[in-house]
């Protein structure tokens, strides 16, 4: 019987080893371990053995059964793994075939640049404001210390909607300074007002009768020119990198005193002069200054208590520089081949 058992074991293990399909395994299992299986038959005949032999043979039979079962399970797993591998192999795709991306739309490059600027100022606690584009001459000029007779007020430079020159298309976002001060009344004021502005310029590669500016205004007690410099340096470094070199240069605007223009050292030539900076070594970014006391006073804010600074950035120029766009007309042409580049 012992021999018989060992024979069964040897044959079974060999057969299991050779089995290629899970169905073969099942057939083997039935033929060995099933109710009518070989091993089962041997076990059934155990009753004929003597009382001494029975436990010994029983133990042997059980160990044969256990090793066959173990081997069966193992083989099952092996075959399943092989089957899965074969299936995956068959399912392989050519990963170099182009993906099927949903078509996403694109933000206009100018608004990309605007949003970048907004985020920087929001981070500094500025509130984003909007205001009317059809504006009173009073707000666009008079309250900004630009009196009657100033060349900017000419009909050749500004679009007017009323014969008496009292209503116009705003030529700058600066009237938002006045509107912010009148609306908020009690400083602190810290606003950013981007928007459309209009000037009577014929369309060419660098001019458009409609363009965009970003106006900034900060009013509080104890605001100094140092705050202005710090704020605008933060802007420039956020836009153009920590290592950018900023230059503040005296300038003149009617509604700020003192006024300045802010340049960044040309990032291409680092000041040596190249076509990007037109040989100047510097690129003009924006105009700024300390709010003129007359403007504060005109808006009902006591210049003996409060001071502040204001700045204005030309958005088109910023976007054109950001994306190296060569011609302003592209911005307003809105050709999809242009829009989809950004």
């Amino acid at each position: 019987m012992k021999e018989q058992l060992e024979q069964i074991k040897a044959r079974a293990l060999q057969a299991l080893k050779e089995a290629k399909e899970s169905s073969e395994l099942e057939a083997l299992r039935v033929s060995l371990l099933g109710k009518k299986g070989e091993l089962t038959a041997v076990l059934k005949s155990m009753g004929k053995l003597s009382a001494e032999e029975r436990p010994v043979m029983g133990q042997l039979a059980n160990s044969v059964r256990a090793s066959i079962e173990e081997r069966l399970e193992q083989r099952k797993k092996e075959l399943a793994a092989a089957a899965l591998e074969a299936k995956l192999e068959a399912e392989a795709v050519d990963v170099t075939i182009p993906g099927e991306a949903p078509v996403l739309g694109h933000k206009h490059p100018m608004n990309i640049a605007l949003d970048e600027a907004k985020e920087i100022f929001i981070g500094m606690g500025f509130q984003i404001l909007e205001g009317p584009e059809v504006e009173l001459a009073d707000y666009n000029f008079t309250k900004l210390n630009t009196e009657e007779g100033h060349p900017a007020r000419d009909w050749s430079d500004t679009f007017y909607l009323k014969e008496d020159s009292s209503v116009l298309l705003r030529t700058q976002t600066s009237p938002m300074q006045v509107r912010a001060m009148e609306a908020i009344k009690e400083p602190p004021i810290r606003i950013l007002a981007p928007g459309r502005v209009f000037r009577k310029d014929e369309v060419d590669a660098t001019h458009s009768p409609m363009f965009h500016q970003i106006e900034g205004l900060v009013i509080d007690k104890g605001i100094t020119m140092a705050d202005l410099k710090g704020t605008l340096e933060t802007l420039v470094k956020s836009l153009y990198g920590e290592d950018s070199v900023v230059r503040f240069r005296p300038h003149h605007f009617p509604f700020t005193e003192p006024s300045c223009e802010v340049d960044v050292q040309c990032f291409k030539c680092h000041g040596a002069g190249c076509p990007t900076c037109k040989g100047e070594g510097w690129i003009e970014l924006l105009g700024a200054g300390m709010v003129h006391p007359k403007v504060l006073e005109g808006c009902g804010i006591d210049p003996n208590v409060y001071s502040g600074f204001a700045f204005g950035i030309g958005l088109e120029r910023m976007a054109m520089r950001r994306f190296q766009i060569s011609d302003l007309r592209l911005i307003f042409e809105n050709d999809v081949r242009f829009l989809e580049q950004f």
Partner: protein
Amino acid sequence: MNLSRKWLSEFVDIQASDREYDEIMTIAGQKVETTTRLDEALKNVKVGKVLSIVRHENSDHMWVCQIDVGEEAPVQIVTGAQNVHEGDLVPAALHNSWLADGTHITKGKLRGVASNGMLCSIQELGLTKNDCPDACEDGIWILNDEGCTVGQDINEVIGNDDSIVEFEITNNRPDCYSLIGLARETAAAFNVPLKLHEPVVKGGGPGVLPELLDVETPDPDLCLRYTARMVRNVKIGPSPKWMRQRLRAAGIRPINNIVDITNYVMVEYGQPMHAFDYRYVKGGKIIVRRAGQDKTLTTLDGSVRNLTPDMLVIADETRPVGLAGVMGGENSEIVADTADVVFESANFDGTSIRKTALALGMRTEASAKFEKNIDPMLTLPAVNRACELVELLGAGQVLDGVIDVINYVPEPVELPLEPEKINALLGTEIPEADMIEYLRREQIEVKDGRIQVPSWRPDLRRMEIPTTLMRGATTRGGYSESQKLENKAGAAARALGYNEIITYSFVSPTGLDLIRVPAEDPRRNQVKILNPLGEDTSVMRTTALPSMLDILARNYAHHNKSAKLYELAKIYLPVEGEVLPYEPKRLMLGSYGGGDFFTLKGAVEAILAAVNAQKPVFTPEKTDPSFHPGRCAAVTVGGKRIGLLGQIHPLVAKNYDMDCEIYAAELDFTALLTVLAPEKTFKALPRFPATTRDLALVCDEAVTVGQLEDTIARAGGKLLRSVKLFDIYRGVGILPGKKSVAFSLVFRAEDRTLTDADIEPAMDRILKALETEQNAIRR
């Protein structure tokens, strides 16, 4: 303002290179735009002496010259000019030289004879007869009397050894539109002395000035000051070389000694001057008045100018002889036989001059200076300087005395110097003594703590220095609610494949015709620009649809196969009784080359959901002339109609030269902000399963899916959670004029699993309602 570094050196001694000069002046507040070397163009052209000149052996008009250019051996040059003689000094362009117009000269052979360069005329050196009145017009320029030496670079001979610095002058600094002004700035920036010169006039010319000339200023508001002197027995001729060269460097064409003097003084002092021929000043009287009845004046340039009554003219007793501050009249021009000259040095109202120049389209050097409101104190030194130059040039005899009509005297202005306030505003700690020193360098005195503002600094005359106290709190930054929603709508539109566009706010009034807006439509009430650039940009838009269609049409014309575009566009609606229009925003969608009505509708639904608007209702809109009558819907949100969407009417498409289906939506984004759904909050996930029932109906064609949905939703009760269309069928089995519409209905309860007994009553109600309300029966 263009500045000659050489001329500047008469007033300040600085050793800075062009680059250093640019940087220091720019940081000091006078921004340098560009600096141009005058000797950039001409290269390797030298003064040569003609050692010998012989006929060319193969030509009857050419000459072979041996030229000494200061090198070891003479240079052989062949010339075709006939005015060159042995011993003459001539400009010789050597091998590998460049002429003023960029011509490159190299050695070569002329009819077999080697020529190692070229002899030059004044034109080839970039000069004109005005610059060199003695030069031969069509021959080689003979330099014998030019005081030059053999081998000298020609640039030195013609004054090209100079740099021209172009400044951007801000309009609060009219004083810097002059050499002296910029010299003052230079002296301050470099902290070097400023060498100013007080003009000295000998005078003594024949006659008594008041007997010969009388000046009246009946319009003192426009003529602030009028200063004049007279010169007699004038000898008109070219001015000397140094003066011509300086004028040329300043970009001014030399004319004759008298005219050149007026221009020279204008550059130096920034004071425009004019010279009249005295014999044409009728009655010896100059009247500075408004044009009034006089209708025309022929100016120096020969143009007949139409005058308006308010323009300021210089007149004699009978007629205008000049357009004040803009240009002189042809009738009193300085000519070759002019004997007696009146120098005018006046100060006119800037605004008046600017308006006149603008109206006549003739902005001149003089008018550009006057419109900046120059210093009225300048007229006297300027006229004296002109007379001094007349004497220096020996151009005539200056009469004693000055006529000086002063209608406006600027008040002396003093400002307190408040160092603490200045430091507080600037955030600096500049000591008072330093401030006084900085002002001194600008030639501004401080007396007893008060700044004595000079007459040439109108910017300081207006300045007030504010005060500051202490630091305050910060505001909370960020976007307003409407800006946040705009950002969300834009992000949703892009996610749906729409590209953002930016279009003009002003449009052509014909856009409304192109989109077939009826005559009485309120959108016809547009804000008009009174001085537009052109008809195309002459009205403020009341709808953004033409803007969108313009851009779609442009893309179509550019052969772009498809376009999907969006814009958040402001429109401008006049409001009765208000000065300023209402400026709401429209959300525009537009596309061609793909998709249909339902693609657009889906996009609108998605964007409305993205901004959390209440559930939109779409109703057929058959009458809007811009849209296809069968493919247009009005969108209503929260009971408010917010716009239209659909296919653009083929006639409108044709108006835009587009032969394809265009889809567009125009939604009132501003109104949308008032019909938002309540803010979303978490709702517990369902704990019990839902049960789905499909329902196929047969109804008349005229019944809309929307109507069926409404009926089902209303009759379904609270267990009905959703109604979803899944099929519409026409054809076999369905009678003509009818259609089959199939919905999937989902029922669910919060507290139990539903059974048939729960759902059957609801289905019964739904079927009954469909039959009675929509005449729709279960298929």
